[in-house]
């Protein structure tokens, strides 16, 4: 008897909580994210960032849309790192779960397929997991993204070159052959040409490669001013180690797309990590003011406190996606997908992720990469659209280091 009363009470509580979730003062954001499978390690950033940001917005009283106050809710499904399943889950989120708006999955190939669903059903999707420019070249109206374009990764670096003394003139470009790095190399080539710099070596290597000696020999022979490198972290580690052992010294500069901002990178290389330049789209700094978290530092602290690990740019990008909806909904003053879509297209606000969170004509955010450098074992931001700190430049040759 007692048991059945408890069960009844539980059932009632459950029913009321379900009732609450479906009440008409709730706006539901739906997402299908990699919670298991091969991409789960990065997928968790999105799940956690979405959840944390929505909780924070609700804590602050929710959002006002057309004079009425709404709470936000999250409906998240696990696509098991399976693209076909994620497509199906987005259809399910729209048609049977009746979510109001869509947040994105992780990775470009997922975003490419899933954005077609958003477009088919004309429900706005803001995604922070796909950087490929292909997502935005299809003239879709309902897809927005908070990762900057791969083509532009070296844009801020090359802009910075123009302000450095001595200015690098000849460049070696080294890139892996996967889709992301091919895009980086393509964009970098165009920008180098526009800046009237000479590409003395243009090398592509197979993804996962560990022997760079032949590429490095070419670079040494060409005696270049700068090396611009694009690939993955383990390859970057090998590249630097072999640079040292073959004594390859570009006159001024060497920079990497990945690795440099991570702690593992500095640990693995020790002193040899010094002087390496890199880039990141996000650093948890107090200059990024945010309506809900105070600033990016506040976000990083709240995130670490709740989940026990540090957020990176994936997490910040995911949080910005949720905030984009919150701000756009208030601007639009309605839940109509078309009205919200138009509001997102015109948005421009300061968030924990970007000083100017706004979307280009094609729907992709315009966000300069922050150039960073390792100086005496510490990561120092150098340049975004102006110098943030003094670079140690030009980089000294290996045999002249203390």
């Amino acid at each position: 008897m007692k048991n059945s009363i408890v069960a009844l009470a539980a059932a009632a509580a459950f029913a009321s909580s379900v009732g609450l979730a479906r009440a008409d003062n709730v706006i539901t954001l739906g997402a299908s994210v990699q919670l298991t499978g091969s991409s789960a390690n990065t997928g968790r950033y999105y799940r956690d960032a979405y959840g944390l940001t929505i909780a924070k917005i609700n804590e602050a009283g929710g959002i006002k849309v057309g004079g009425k106050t709404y709470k936000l809710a999250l409906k998240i499904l696990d696509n098991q790192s399976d693209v076909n399943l994620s497509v199906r889950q987005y259809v399910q989120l729209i048609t049977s779960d009746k979510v109001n708006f869509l947040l994105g999955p992780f990775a470009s190939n997922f975003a490419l397929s899933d954005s077609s669903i958003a477009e088919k059903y004309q429900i706005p999707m803001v995604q922070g997991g796909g950087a490929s420019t292909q997502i935005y070249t299809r003239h879709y109206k309902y897809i927005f993204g908070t990762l900057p374009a791969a083509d532009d990764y070296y844009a801020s670096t090359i802009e910075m070159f123009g302000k450095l003394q001595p200015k690098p003139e000849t460049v070696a470009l080294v890139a892996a052959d996967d889709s992301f790095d091919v895009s980086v190399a393509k964009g970098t080539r165009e920008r180098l040409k526009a800046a009237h710099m000479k590409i003395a070596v243009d090398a592509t290597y197979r993804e996962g490669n560990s022997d760079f000696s032949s590429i490095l020999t070419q670079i040494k022979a060409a005696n270049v001013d700068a090396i611009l490198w694009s690939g993955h972290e383990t390859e970057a580690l090998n590249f630097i180690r072999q640079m040292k052992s073959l004594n390859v010294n570009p006159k001024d500069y060497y920079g990497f797309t990945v690795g440099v901002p991570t702690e593992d990178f500095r640990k693995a290389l020790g002193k040899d990590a010094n002087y390496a330049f890199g880039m990141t789209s996000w650093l948890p700094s107090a200059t990024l003011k945010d309506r809900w978290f105070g600033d990016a530092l506040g976000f990083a602290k709240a995130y670490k406190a709740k989940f026990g690990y540090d957020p990176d740019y994936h997490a910040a990008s995911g949080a910005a996606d949720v905030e984009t909806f919150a701000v756009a909904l208030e601007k639009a003053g309605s839940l109509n997908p078309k009205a919200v879509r138009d509001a997102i297209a015109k948005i421009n606000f300061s968030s924990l992720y970007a000083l100017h969170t706004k979307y280009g004509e094609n729907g992709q955010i315009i966000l300069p990469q922050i150039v960073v450098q390792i100086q005496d074992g510490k990561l120092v931001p150098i340049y975004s659209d102006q110098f943030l700190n003094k670079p140690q430049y030009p980089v000294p040759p290996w045999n002249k280091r203390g």
Partner: protein
Amino acid sequence: MMGRWPLVLAVLVAIVLAGVPWFGNDVAVQFGINALLLATLAQSWNILGGFTGYVSFGNSVFYGLGTYGTAVAMTHFNLPFGVGLVVGAVVAMLCAALVGIPILRLRGPYFAIATLGLNGAMAAIVSNLPIAGSNIGLVLPLMRGDAIFYELALALLVVCTLTVLWISSSRYGMALVAIREDEDAAGSMGVNATLYKVTALVLSALFTAIAGGIHAYWSTFVDPASAFDTTLNVRMVIMCVFGGPGTVFGPVVGSFILSAVYEVLASEISTAAVLFFGLVIVLAVVFTPKGLTDLMAGARRSGWRYLFRNIRENRL
């Protein structure tokens, strides 16, 4: 020999399935497209794997060529979808013939090993072809109308199954089975084994490639990783063997059941879905190693003891 009732039942099921876009919801249509395409893949794998017993791990190459043939024709040459499908199918069949003639002379595990390498090789080639978008992949135009994709997938499965039905009752099919049972004996009876095996592979490639082409246009994006996916090939084998290799309806029933099990597991207990899916496969292999079709016949003969007799017979 098959009785009449499975045929009648199959026709009824096909008619009901054809109506799904009208009375089912959008999620059912999405699930249906995937399940029908997978069933087609299992059924086309059955043509070679089921009838001749040659286990191919290279069928995902034909799938990949089908997707890329369609995608390249549509994006670079602005050809209509139908022409794209034909291009993909022709490329895949040429590849099957070219590859089949040398490697179908290998037998048993040696053939399986040879086909294993095909997929990686083709993925590497495609990812270095600028016309195929290299490693970046190709984006196809968006078409609203999932019902059309659904009906196309269903039609393809029906045609593929009819082909297998014809094979199962023709002289051609008997030659294939003879090769499976004893290739040397078949040869001495005047069966040109190489010719039969290569045509079976080419037929298999035809249907696999068209399924790939439909998937490409429907998902609007292809890249080497998704087009030349080895796990897809493993799924074809599992689904076909689970249902009953060398039978007409076994692979279809097998893939429908496994797709449904996978879907239920994925939506109900998503974190442990893969684990439970693995468990289902293990149980199936232990209790019904000859597939569901054999289970149906065996259960009618000896009831539940059928399951345990399998364990005894296979000395598990």
